[in-house]
């Protein structure tokens, strides 16, 4: 398709054409209406004056006879004006007036006619020898014929002017309209072309591409912005998917290999039932761990894909905090850590109770795991984990604050990723999915997981919008 053909095919251009046609027709209609009306008006005026004049002249004839009439007509005919007079005898012999070279037979029909004529004072060879006139022929008593009329030059000129104006305006409308249409179409086309170009590169695999936004805030911009948001989401989903597959490859294959090695080794080395039993039990333990990891991964994937959104109900965040803290409290006590709950007032929120509970559980579990009882503050107070549920504006904050080693600021974004475990934590049991799950749950609810410095220690905050996730950012 040629560039011009493409231009002609744009919606904008087609619209321009439609508008243009409508506008040109309208202009033509307006001018035609104007021209016809003017013509009628002029005709009416002529008729009126001519009638009056004939009445006047007939009166002169009645009072003063032919002689007086001839004098009056002569006087009037000499005045330079568009008025035309002719008085003839019965057989057409002119007696007075300023008209000659009438169409033959005009004088035989009394009444209104349009005719061509020549003024008496004009030479035959003059350029505009022939004029048009609207005349009325009147039969005077005694067989004389009186012709009174008006030159139509003025009317014709007006008519021509209007006609010319009409032609010009239609031409100008067409030219300007077409040019404008082409210009606008080209502008729109260029932007759409740019968008098409970008989408093509995106389809070819460059998910980082974004549609150009002109910044004019018009409908194309709004479309581009929305599409960009969609691309953002797709990119993050794709990234998540890639991460998951990478992680599955890496972190599930490792324990699977270990599992296989153990079974192989048992077959090779074990000598008696007890040794087989021990190897099998270890295998089962290992596979249980694998299942746990796998479940957590599935849960995160589910939370991130937004599937669990159907399951949102009203719940009390304070109750969850109390319940989960109570569930983990003996675990902390075993390590000499006090779990302090600050969630006395009901804190209503909307979401998936099970997932939020699990996220809070993971955070408390982490806090207990990493808050070493030996790192008691100098005051001798026991290591303490504070779990709280509070309202902050339109958000509900569930906070788990410990006095453990904390996470250095530069690592905070990273630890939320799947399977990321800081060097210091490698010795601890765990899948490395706890924080990822908490973050995924927060995102599912339209909130976020924030990691802050508890000076010393770590403060994990799950911030949830009180009314549940906003379905669409309209």
């Amino acid at each position, binding site marked *: 398709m040629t560039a011009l053909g493409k231009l002609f095919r744009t919606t904008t251009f087609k619209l321009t054409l439609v508008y243009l046609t409508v506008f040109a027709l309208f202009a033509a209609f307006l001018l035609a209406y104007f021209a016809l009306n003017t013509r009628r008006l002029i005709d009416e005026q002529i008729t009126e004056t001519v009638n009056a004049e004939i009445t006047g002249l007939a009166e002169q004839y009645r009072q003063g006879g032919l002689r007086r009439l001839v004098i009056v007509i002569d006087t009037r005919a000499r005045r330079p004006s568009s008025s035309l007079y002719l008085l003839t005898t019965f057989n057409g012999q002119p007696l007075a007036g300023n008209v000659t070279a009438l169409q033959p037979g005009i004088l035989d029909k009394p009444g209104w006619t349009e005719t061509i004529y020549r003024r008496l004072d004009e030479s035959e060879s003059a350029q505009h020898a022939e004029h048009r006139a609207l005349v009325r022929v009147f039969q005077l008593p005694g067989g004389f014929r009186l012709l009174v009329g008006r030159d139509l030059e003025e009317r014709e000129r007006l008519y021509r002017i209007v006609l010319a104006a009409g032609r010009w305006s239609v031409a100008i409308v067409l030219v300007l309209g077409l040019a404008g249409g082409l210009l606008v179409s080209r502008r729109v086309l260029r932007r759409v072309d740019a968008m098409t170009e970008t989408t093509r590169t995106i389809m070819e695999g460059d998910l980082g591409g974004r549609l150009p936004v002109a910044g004019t805030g018009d409908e194309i911009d709004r479309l581009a912005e929305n599409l960009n948001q969609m691309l953002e989401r797709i990119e993050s989903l794709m990234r998540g998917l890639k991460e998951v597959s990478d992680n599955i490859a890496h972190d599930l294959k490792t324990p699977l290999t270990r599992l296989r090695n153990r079974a192989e080794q048992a077959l090779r080395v074990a000598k008696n039932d007890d040794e087989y039993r021990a190897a099998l039990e270890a295998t*089962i333990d290992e596979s249980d761990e694998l299942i746990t990891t796998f479940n*957590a991964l*599935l849960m995160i994937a589910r939370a991130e894909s937004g599937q669990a959104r159907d399951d949102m109900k009203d719940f009390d965040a304070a109750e969850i905090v109390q319940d989960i803290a109570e*569930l983990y409290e003996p*675990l902390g006590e075993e390590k000499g850590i006090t779990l302090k709950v600050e969630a006395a007032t009901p804190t209503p929120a909307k979401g998936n109770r099970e997932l939020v*509970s699990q996220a809070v559980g993971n955070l408390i*579990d982490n806090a207990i795991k990493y808050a070493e009882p030996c790192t008691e503050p100098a005051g001798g107070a026991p290591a303490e984990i504070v779990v709280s549920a509070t309202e902050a504006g339109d958000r509900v904050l569930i906070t788990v604050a410990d006095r453990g080693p904390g996470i250095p600021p530069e690592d905070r974004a990273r630890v939320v990723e799947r399977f990321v475990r800081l060097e210091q934590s490698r010795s601890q049991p765990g*899948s490395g999915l*706890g924080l990822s799950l908490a973050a995924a749950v927060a995102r599912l609810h339209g909130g976020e997981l924030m990691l802050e410095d508890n000076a010393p220690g770590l403060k994990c905050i799950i911030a949830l919008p009180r009314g549940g996730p906003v379905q669409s950012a309209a």
Partner: protein
Amino acid sequence: MRILVIEDDSAAADYLVKAFREVGHVADSATDGEDGLALAQDGQYDVLIVDRMLPKRDGLSVIGALRDQGVETPALILSALGQVDDRVKGLRAGGDDYLPKPYSFSELLARVEVLARRRGGRNEETVLHVGDLQLDRLSHQVRRGAEEISLQPREFRLLEYLMKHAGQVVTRTMLLENVWDYHFDPQTNVIDVHISRLRSKIDKGFAQPLLHTVRGAGYMIRDGAR
């Protein structure tokens, strides 16, 4: 106890049938929904184990059809779909328990035994006894012999659940589901810690321990003297 396993993976079904027979139960299997429904309609089984995804007729519809016909045999649903809403759907369809795959046999066995027992008559006595341990569900009083034991509300519910199923193995997940109403894996041994706390309150200082750990399965409360 007679158990019917409706499971399309024949290796898994064979394994279950064999395992149930080993622990002294009678077990049959069906490999698709239609066969399973036909076998279960007699009502001669004590428990049904139904895989959710079956050829010809899916597990939920098998259970639904049975319930429509008035067959109230307790059914445990096995499914690869382990999320909370899947579970809710399964239980709503008439299932009595829900176990996501992969599961351990000990977990399945414990749940099946609880289901079968439940059928034998609801355990609604207000005072539960195990040996000289006594729990009053109305006054929330717990005594061992002459001594009164004071328990936290959650410990009370834990003990109540164990005593309701006295003599039966109760797994950690069953406790988490029934005492705490959570269906996720807490990833740590939280339940063990709660149990050991409870144990120190009811068994400490008594010659005869009542709360036993069943290796590889869970816990059981029983009168050791019996």
